[in-house]
């Protein structure tokens, strides 16, 4: 089938395939930002941020809801796809272990990296599609912004995120910012930065992502800006 007839967003591509491609892009972006290998928890947080902040880059959200857990965002379907990527040799896992988390569940610990031999051809194919190139540009910039945080801060990002930290939503409930609900305080906040540049200029999407992450940092440290 030609590239023209098989668009990555066409109904012919299953959600799972789309998520696996997104996962490869996420791990690639993390590695490009210096976060190699990326721990499971941080990878799910990065996936969450790529969903909740997609509107900042004028893109649709891939998955507009997530289960709120003590350990941070976690996507069971994405984890299954991640396991599949490991099984198929596209991703590698290191430092594998199990921990008992605050939700009294056994949780997998480990860190992921790409096996470039198999991942690069996928990324090369992705580069043929304009929409996917935009996704790559967005997630790469997001990962760069994310990489400015320390290891502890990377793990604590969701505790300050404007959407995930909403006190109205209890742990064990679903944070919905794009499936049934349209409110997305994280993207709203990031966009609000656009009009606050001291020179009176308007921040472009890349700058908004960095400012949003810097603001999470400031909130983690008694609201003192980085």
């Amino acid at each position: 089938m030609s590239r023209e007839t098989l668009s990555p967003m066409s109904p012919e591509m299953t959600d799972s395939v789309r998520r696996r491609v997104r996962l490869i892009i996420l791990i690639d972006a993390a590695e490009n930002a210096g976060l190699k290998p990326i721990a499971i928890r941080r990878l799910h947080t990065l996936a969450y941020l790529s969903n909740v902040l997609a509107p900042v880059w004028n893109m649709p959200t891939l998955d507009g809801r997530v289960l709120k857990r003590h350990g941070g965002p976690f996507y069971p379907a994405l984890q299954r796809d991640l396991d599949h990527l490991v099984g198929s040799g596209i991703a590698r896992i290191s430092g594998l272990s199990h921990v008992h988390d605050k939700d009294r569940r056994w949780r997998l610990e480990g860190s992921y990296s790409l096996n470039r031999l198999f991942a690069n051809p996928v990324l090369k194919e992705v580069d043929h599609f304009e929409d996917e190139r935009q996704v790559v540009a967005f997630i790469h910039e997001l990962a760069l912004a994310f990489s400015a945080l320390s290891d502890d801060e990377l793990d604590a990002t969701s505790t300050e995120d404007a959407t995930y930290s909403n006190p109205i939503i209890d742990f064990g409930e679903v944070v919905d910012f794009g499936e049934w609900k349209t409110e997305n305080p994280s993207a709203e906040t990031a966009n609000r930065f656009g009009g606050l540049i001291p020179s009176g200029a308007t921040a472009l999407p890349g700058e908004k992502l960095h400012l949003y992450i810097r603001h999470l940092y400031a909130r983690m440290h008694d609201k003192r800006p980085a």
Partner: protein
Amino acid sequence: MTSGPRRSKVSGAPDAWEGGDLKATVDKNAGIGSDAGLPEDVRFARGIVNLVRSQIAEGTANRPCPAVFLLQPNARALDESVQPRRVPMLNNGKVPIAGRLWYVNEAVVSGKYLELEATDDDEIFSIVTDRLQLGTVTAAIVEHRTKTPAVRFYPRGLGEPDDMRVIPIAATVTLNQIFNAIDRIHEKSLLTPDANSVAGKLWKNATKCHPIKNAEDVVQMYLRIGLTMAFPTCDIRHEQPSAVGRLDLKIEESDALDKTDVKRHAILELKVLRSYSSSGKPLSAAQTGKWIESGVNQAHYYGKEWHAKGKALCCFDMRQEPTGEHCFSHVRKLAKDLQVELKLWFLFRSSERMRRATSNQTTSGAKE
């Protein structure tokens, strides 16, 4: 059987995320990520310069020895027993950099370092090229043995030590210096179709003199890259919305620590002059005249609105033949009254035409 997660209501923006807090973050961090989309080596060079600038402003003490930066986000250890140490928020300039080998990403917002025992240049180069086998990785060396730190940029890595340029940490930014930088961009990337990069072709059909449809966007991209390298401490902002339209390029510079202290150096309105549209439709001299006049007015309005120190209309002439600055005759007085500088760069549609024009100029110069 387990029950699925319960749905719950999501409120709007939380109360704690209001103006003052957000403004404090922006005032401290504006400009980070404003170069998104530029080539990674350009961002890397700019990031290193701004890191050094922050260090100077913070008064961070550095030993009198070089710091080596590699555009290699994932570190390689020199010795398995000593793992690189990670530094988040590197760009705040608070962590000493000298005497260390740094692995950074293109945004230079975090990094990992190894202590460098060597202070001798040859030894440092050898560590990177021979021991680490990273001689082809884009690199920069920050020199702390001079009175003021200097940044030496190696786009093709330390394995090509002769391909090096010194990047200024502090530069005066005037319209003339901006024009000089555009002269260099023009010569390197715009002058002929052969000079265009694969991703930045300006001609749809050069033989027929048909530019591409979005030629202004492509010229703007070349200028963003070139001006960022020429003035790395500045934010080269593009496509800024305004009450009267969209401003093409704005060159501003914030203080290294206090981002509310901004120098508004210049605004540039960019126009491409065409003999034909991309589809081959002829465009008259009158249309070109109106196009130029609208550019003068736009430059004036944007400059006034942004309180820019300098304002200029920069025309990139993709017409059939170079006719010099005659195209500005009808707007000279207007531009002078509005204090808008006028500049023109001609883009040849073939290298052969460019060579012919150059030799004709030389011949007529010799006759005179």
